[in-house]
């Protein structure tokens, strides 16, 4: 059974004659426990798909079903306990006036989790932050630390699916490596399903198994990461992306 099933998804902004489509006629499936990547350049609609799944895009059409539940205009409480999202900008994803403790405990309160105190300690451990970080404000944290808190918040209610919107693109290379390792470990430990958006093929290649390449709101191609490594892309656009990205000197 697919964890996520998207059929003919269209997302648009504006009304009537000024309607512009961010996503047009996109269909794909993500299996349980799989890690699926969405790549493309800016404006290709990849982040919009994620937001549509999360319920943050108001105008859409098509059919979406997540964990067996078909999605309507609003999301249910059970949806939120199964699907969570990590955002791109670590400097914008935490409320500036709330401590880490407040962020995590509120998330757990909303989901009715018990033993909040103990679970906070465990969550911080899971994402590699010690107890000393618990009562800090966001401005006392570095970019990498903030992103870890954002991941902890996403894991607070024990979801099975994580939507990752370019989680490392705003981070330094060495910090990115730590966060990517963390994401790999967490997926293994908690048997998570990932849908990850990125413009960086190296990052996607590290974390994902299959990739959807997007251009202008549509899918150009869906291929496995293995095929991508062997440069066996079928669409010329994908080839072009691959060539522009391969800049390793080793």
């Amino acid at each position: 059974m697919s964890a996520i099933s998207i059929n003919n998804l269209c997302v648009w902004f504006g009304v009537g004659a000024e309607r512009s489509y961010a996503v047009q006629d996109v269909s794909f499936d993500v299996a349980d426990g799989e890690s699926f990547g969405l790549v493309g350049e800016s404006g290709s609609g990849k982040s919009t798909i994620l937001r549509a799944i999360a319920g943050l895009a108001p105008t859409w059409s098509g059919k979406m079903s997540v964990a067996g539940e078909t999605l309507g205009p609003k999301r249910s409480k059970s949806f939120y306990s199964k699907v969570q999202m990590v955002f791109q900008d670590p400097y914008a994803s935490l409320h500036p006036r709330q401590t880490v403790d407040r962020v995590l405990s509120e998330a757990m309160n909303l989901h009715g989790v018990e033993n909040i105190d103990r679970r906070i300690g465990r969550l911080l451990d899971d994402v590699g932050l010690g107890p000393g970080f618990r009562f800090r404000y966001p401005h006392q944290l570095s970019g990498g630390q903030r992103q870890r808190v954002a991941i902890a918040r996403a894991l607070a209610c024990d979801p099975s699916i994580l939507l990752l919107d370019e989680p490392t693109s705003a981070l330094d290379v060495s910090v990115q490596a730590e966060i990517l390792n963390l994401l790999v470990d967490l997926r293994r430990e908690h048997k998570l399903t990932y849908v990850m958006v990125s413009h960086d093929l190296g990052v996607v290649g590290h974390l994902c198994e299959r990739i959807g390449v997007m251009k202008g709101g549509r899918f150009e191609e869906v291929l496995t990461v293995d095929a991508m490594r062997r440069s066996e892309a079928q669409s010329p656009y994908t080839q072009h992306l691959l060539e522009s990205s391969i800049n390793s000197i080793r």
Partner: protein
Amino acid sequence: MTDAPLLDLENLWVKFRTRSGVFDAVRGISFTLGKERLGIVGESGSGKSMTGRAVLRLIRPPGFIEADRLDVHGEDILSLPEKRMRQLRGGRVSMIMQDPKFSLNPVMTVGQQLVEALRAHEKVSRSEAHKRALEVLDEVAIRDPKRVFDLYPHEVSGGMGQRIMIAMMLLPNPEILIADEPTSALDVSVQLQVLDIIDKLVRDRGMGLMFISHDLNLVAKFCDRIIIMYAGRIVETCKAGELRNAQHPYTLGLLNSVPDLEHPRDHLEVLKRDPAWREAPSVSARV
């Protein structure tokens, strides 16, 4: 004649007075820049952007600059009065920044900004400036210069905006170009295009290029010489082609922490920051 290097820096410090003491952003670095492409690589907080701004003396209080030597083509600029400094900025040393959205004036057309940039440094008539602006737009591979001349910055794409920025900075024929993360805000395919243009212009005009970036691989492919900065100091310097033989653990760590499509690994190498790196003296990159 072997003339003086275009830029000669010795023991540059950039400090900030804060409530809890003096914070050193750049701690005693030295390097020279000739008619070459020099890449300065570092992560956030390494001091690389501060270095670029220090060369143009764009550090405002509470920051201040200290250096044993800061020469542009043999001329000491540390002691230059502000009026002369203004002529130097843009006239002999230019800077391109990361995001054209924030570095182009949103209420002036592209053409107006180009003309203003030129007339600030050379006494030319408006029509002459107009003509030179169109020429330089053509040089940065903008296909319809006349149409773009009348556009506002929000009406052009990111890549085009960056090319306009380059055009604007190169109009007054500077000797040195400082590029601070010029392609980080651009899409991958546009990045190569913009880099090609910078490369061509720098080569054709015999300029020196200081390319500041966080992307080690990009700099290795694009520059002739590389300087790697950490915590305000230079930890290593080498020729671009010899990067794979880098010695310093920080450089190796940076190289190894980038996920490589062609060489998959289960876990990426995590950089173990040794406190000794901060304390070690800066490596001189003077040629």
